[in-house]
């Protein structure tokens, strides 16, 4: 069946989010296909980060944050009362704007997710999984001799790839990226963009970016957010060549932002 129709990993129906009185996301309807990269662009404060953080319920930490509507991953509502939030977050990994490794060794940074989720039987399996994820994140060659060193000794770009490896090691289905290259130099950025392309083979990736070129380069689908609404959502190629909405066109051509 799934061979014929492109399966949607994430389905969002009439989704609203509120910070207290503030209506941050308005009536979001969007389908994110599996094994694709979906980028969200839009001016600051448009709700794209709020949307991203609603997917793995990181907004639960914020007092007075409320939602209604449906946010479904593989047909299951993320906001269902019976959902186990820790299990949800294991299945939906996250990479943050600033690299945020733990103040631990490189090895222990990756091991953390395996330990808390009890995803290994013995030391051998632990080491294998760590090596594999560091390879997957393209940082193994640079750190393989320094696994016992503090993660803080790595460069910003290496730290961010370490954080990606940390997210990958617990085998999520979806990876959320919140402006993952915003604090990195162009070379590190290029490496991460390359990596994202490779990762979509195994993961569904949702990425927030302030950089329109980045969306054009990496994403299959792009959503343009403004004032808490999705103005336009389409294939990236179409969006950047023949935008269907005047506001989208103005934004991507840099007339406002």
């Amino acid at each position: 069946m799934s061979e014929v129709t492109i399966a949607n990993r994430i389905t969002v129906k009439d989704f609203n989010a509120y910070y207290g009185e503030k209506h941050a996301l308005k009536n979001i309807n969007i389908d994110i296909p599996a094994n694709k990269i979906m980028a969200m662009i839009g001016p600051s404060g448009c709700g794209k980060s709020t949307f991203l953080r609603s997917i793995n319920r990181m907004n639960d930490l914020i007092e007075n944050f409320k939602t209604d509507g449906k946010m479904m991953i593989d047909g299951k509502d993320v906001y269902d009362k019976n959902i186990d939030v820790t299990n949800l977050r294991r299945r939906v990994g996250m990479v943050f704007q600033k690299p945020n490794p733990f103040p631990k060794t490189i090895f222990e940074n990756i091991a953390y997710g395996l330990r808390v989720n009890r995803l290994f039987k013995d030391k051998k399996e632990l080491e294998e999984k760590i090596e594999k994820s560091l390879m997957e994140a393209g940082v193994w060659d640079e750190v393989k001799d320094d696994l016992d060193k503090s993660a803080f000794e790595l460069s910003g770009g290496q730290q961010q790839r370490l954080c990606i490896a940390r997210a990958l090691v617990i085998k999520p289905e979806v990876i959320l990226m919140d402006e993952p290259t915003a604090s990195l130099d162009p070379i590190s950025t290029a490496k991460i963009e390359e990596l994202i392309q490779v990762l979509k083979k195994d993961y569904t990736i949702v990425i927030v970016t302030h950089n329109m070129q980045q969306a054009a380069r990496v994403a299959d689908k792009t959503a343009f957010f403004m004032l808490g609404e999705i103005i336009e959502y389409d294939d990236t190629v179409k969006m950047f060549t023949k935008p269907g909405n005047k506001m989208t066109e103005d934004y991507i051509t840099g007339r406002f932002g």
Partner: protein
Amino acid sequence: MFNQLIKAFKSKNDRTIAQEIGFTIIKICIFIVILSLGILLLYIFMKGFRVVNLDFITQTPRDGMVKGGIFPAILGTFLLSLGALIFALPTGVLTAVWLTEYATSQKFVRIVRIGINSLAGVPSIVFGLFGLMFFVKYMQFGVCLLSGSLVLGILILPTIIGASEEALLTVPKAFKEASLSLGATRWETMYKIILPNSVSGILTGIILSVGRAAGETAPILMTAATFYTTRLPNSLFSKVMALPYHIYALMTEGSKSGQTEIAYGTALVLLILVLVINGLAIYIRIKSRRARKW
């Protein structure tokens, strides 16, 4: 100290004069602080150092306190502080954890905070009175190590809670978010990420509060301390001698010559003890600040 001020007056510039008057007042205040601390330390030292020697800190008192040493009082103070810590450490740290990480109702948190702050403002003699009525009489522990430790424990709770909260809040939110995003529970995030990274701050607060507990007199006056005992404490229900109370007793009871000198010697020992404890806290703080990488 006044050079700059004189220079400012010569320049006849109003704003410079105002500034230099301000700075001079600040300098005088600092001078007063350092001077009074210096005089205090010097005075206690001059009055007390003659009686302090190895025998003084290892022997039990003899001849109505004027001979022998103050070992039972040192031991008593140590045990009282330790007991206070055993009670206040888990209670205080876990309360701080709850206040910073778990509490969902901000209104309730505010009420608890007001309570804690009020606790910090209660005069220590009131703690003593409470201890007497509650632990000694109502719970029938009697005047003993246990009652005194519990009262001191309650006394230092606000300090421990405050220091722990401050330490917990210095851990970057990014660590917490990373942990949660990996499927860790809030509890795992707390004891695997947040607590280990704030332990030095918590420790500093705890050590400072131990110094406070060691020096308190009023709370143990009616709950734990005794002026004189030949036996060392052998259970939680023993009365104990304690350094601050020993000083108080020597100065207010009896009329033998030499009591004053012993009192100053005891004060010197207590002072050194507290300074060493505080020094330890400063040492840990400096060391952890160097090791910190974020």
